[in-house]
């Protein structure tokens, strides 16, 4: 077998799989379901390969299975123990399946949640809130009218997503001023979602035409000999 033969097999496989997925346009059917299960199997296989080759093997090579070299024995023991810690925490997750030992498995999950929460807070504050709030404020300096519209849009959108209400004469309602500002915010949200929806249609249209063009090109190449 040559690399050209591999390319040919890959081309036919790609064509058949694309047709299996497109068969969904005729309704949910067994051909589409086969394609989806092939995707699940392949994705599981690749995820396993990436987890082992890119994370677990390098980690074990630099800790548990590290060469001693010039390092003293105490340091090597500490390194090996440290290398085993995340594997132990990971293995604890297996206990989550047992109703009796489940709480022990929570310890591994707790480590993930703790670090994940810290990363999420830092990412949200420094990567989203601060830069976007600064950009919204700076927009006023670039163009006064557009800048004010942007500033009003950002503030009213945030008001639209808050639910502070007061009880008056037995009914719980938001203050009148907030309701008016919230309606303006809802308008901005609708316009933003409409534009994003159109963007999604355009993107999927581009992918669709590219997939159809690629497969037709392959078929025409084969027909042409």
């Amino acid at each position, binding site marked *: 077998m040559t690399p050209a033969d591999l390319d040919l097999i*890959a*081309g036919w496989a790609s064509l058949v799989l694309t047709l299996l997925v497109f068969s969904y346009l005729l309704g949910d059917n067994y051909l589409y379901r086969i394609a989806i299960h092939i995707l699940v199997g392949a994705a599981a296989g690749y995820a396993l390969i990436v987890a082992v080759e890119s994370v677990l093997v390098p980690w074990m090579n630099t800790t548990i299975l590290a060469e001693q070299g010039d390092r003293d024995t105490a340091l090597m023991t500490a390194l090996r123990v440290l290398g085993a810690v995340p594997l132990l*925490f990971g293995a604890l997750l297996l206990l989550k399946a047992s109703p009796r030992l489940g709480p022990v498995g929570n310890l591994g999950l707790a480590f993930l949640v703790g670090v994940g929460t*810290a990363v999420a*807070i830092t990412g949200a504050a420094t990567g989203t809130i601060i830069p976007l709030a600064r950009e919204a404020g700076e927009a006023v300096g670039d163009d006064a009218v557009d800048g004010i519209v*942007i500033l009003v849009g950002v*503030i009213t959108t945030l008001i639209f997503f808050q639910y502070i209400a007061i009880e008056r004469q037995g009914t719980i309602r938001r203050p009148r001023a907030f309701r008016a500002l919230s309606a303006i915010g809802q308008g901005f949200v609708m316009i933003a979602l409409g534009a994003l929806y159109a963007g999604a249609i355009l993107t999927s249209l581009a992918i669709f035409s590219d997939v159809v063009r690629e497969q037709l090109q392959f078929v025409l190449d084969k027909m042409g000999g």
Partner: protein
Amino acid sequence: MRHHRLLDFLATFTVISVGLVTLIGLLSERGSAPASIADFMVQLVTVIAAVAVLIGILNLISVHLGRFVRAEHGWPYSLVVLVVAVAVIALRILDRADIWSGELEGEQVSLRVFEAVQVSLESALAAIILFSLVYAAYRLLRHGATVWNVLFGTAAVIVLLGWIPLENLDVLGDVRDWLVRVPVSAGTRGILIGVGLGTVTVGIRVLIGQDRSYRS
């Protein structure tokens, strides 16, 4: 029951202590001791997450193996999942063993299979989303006109029409550019800042021990 309470306390203590140490480290200057500890914590979590992925995939394989062995409803699909997953792993092992000879020597067959299978299937799935989106838009129009529907639809139509290179209708492109630059950017920023504030709020609740849903 007492053991469970102790374990629950340990889990909460782990979340709070590990979370605070990492948070302080991430907010510290690069190269400082707290920042190095935070980097190490993130590295540990990467390894734990990889083990979790491994456990998840082994669970998926065992579930499908069980369905196939017991010949449950839909067992042929389970067989497909098992065969493909095992084939992908086997091909990677053969690649690593450098087993290919002749013209295929040094070839990464598993990567070629990845392109042929994974990329083709994902592209085709992304392509048929087009029909779902257009159908959903049609259903929205049939649902009846409200102020919000009209705003949503008008923005979508302007953005779509703005991309058509119509002669003497540059104004549509200009309107689209303004729409994307001003109201859409304002709405999107508002939504993203809201998501960010929500993330920070939930994060703080977890770090002060108010939200302990991970124990359930």
